[in-house]
């Protein structure tokens, strides 16, 4: 049971590293961006995991609650905005990939490098 308390963090590590692997090992630029999204989601999961308090509830203060225990609102705020910023920056990355495809005719990294060397 003691180690079960770390399961969330282990999942975070595994997801983070799956995303990292896609970024470093995959050749296709869109696949790299997908990997980056996974990486980013893993970080979101880490923050939200830390915000949880056992037996707590969502941080919405309602009258009449006896001795309420709330989860931590601060990491939630940080991640809420980070999600929307994340999609905007991903869209910017996709825009760059689309332009690369138009100029180079490919989205595979090694082919782009070959064209650049010529």
């Amino acid at each position, binding site marked *: 049971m003691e180690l079960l308390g770390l399961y969330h963090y*282990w999942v975070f590590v595994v997801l983070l590293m799956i995303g990292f692997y896609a970024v470093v090992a995959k050749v296709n630029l869109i696949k790299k961006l997908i990997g980056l999204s996974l990486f980013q989601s893993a970080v979101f999961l880490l923050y939200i995991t830390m915000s949880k308090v056992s037996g707590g509830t969502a941080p919405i203060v309602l009258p009449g609650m006896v001795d309420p225990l709330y989860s931590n609102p601060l990491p939630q705020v940080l991640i809420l905005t980070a999600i929307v*910023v994340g999609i905007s920056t991903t869209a910017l990355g996709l*825009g760059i*990939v689309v332009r690369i495809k138009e100029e180079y005719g490919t989205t595979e990294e090694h082919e782009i490098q070959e064209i650049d060397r010529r």
Partner: protein
Amino acid sequence: MTIVFGIFLLTLLVITALGIVHTRNLFVAVMLLGIFSLLIALNFFILDAADVALTEAAVGAGISTVLFLGALALTSERERLGTRHRWLSLAVVASATLVVLYATFDKPRFGDPNAPVHQHVAPWYLEKTPEYVDIPNVVTAVLGSFRGYDTLGEVFVVFTAGIGVLFLLSSRRGGANHRPPGERDASGIGLREHVIPRVVGRLLVPFILLFGLYVQFHGEYGPGGGFQAGALIAAAFILYALIEGEDRTLAAVPQRWLNALMVGGALLYGGVGLAGIVLGSNFLDYSVLGADPVAGQHLGIILIEAGVGMTVTGTLLSIFHAFAARDRA
């Protein structure tokens, strides 16, 4: 029971992520990424982060999938060469995994109320929100008032990213704004030929819009706020564009309105901040905006949430239109 369900969901997450990286078909990868987002949104919900779950479901599963598909339509659906330097990458990733896994043993256990993260400012926020801001949703209070600077910065980042996409994709081939009229091809008609998506979609669009507005204006009382509402409203228009085609959507909400929304939202937020200075207090201090400090906080939060919603809606829709217009150019 919740713990078992949580562990089940987390395991599903890992399996989905492996599938995403493994498949060579990018279309499949993007669809799996949508499923991944829904699963992680469920996880957030179990972890008491209702606001974050709402955002992730709207942004990750909805808008992100559409944007990736838009980019795929402009590039290619298959990875030609899967992996390069596979063993080297695996070695780097495996050693990094071991190092970070080792570090997790020093983390406080899951749900520990005495973890350092719960000792600093968070209890103060929970305790003082009813007194200073007097709205039930502490997340909105922290987002809009206590950490308004952060949120202002995030809004400008969203705004900047939107401008960047418009710059990148509206060059040369003619962007969303100046496409010659009367140019219609098959992709511009959308799904109008398909009965079931059309009927279901048309039924859903007004309700999604209504829900978006509810989330916008109810953000102080329940989960919600400008970021979620912006994503939901943008999703409703994107759905409409997918069903009825780009032209009709741009006829209903022209690009200049979207530009005005993007800029207007950011300006509204900044303007509320400056109003605080003009009325004799600090930047983004809403207390002086109303008759008494609490009323001022209420007014300030409603205004900046409106600004956030406007910018997010305008930016996400502009980005979508930029990709879609590129598709047909």
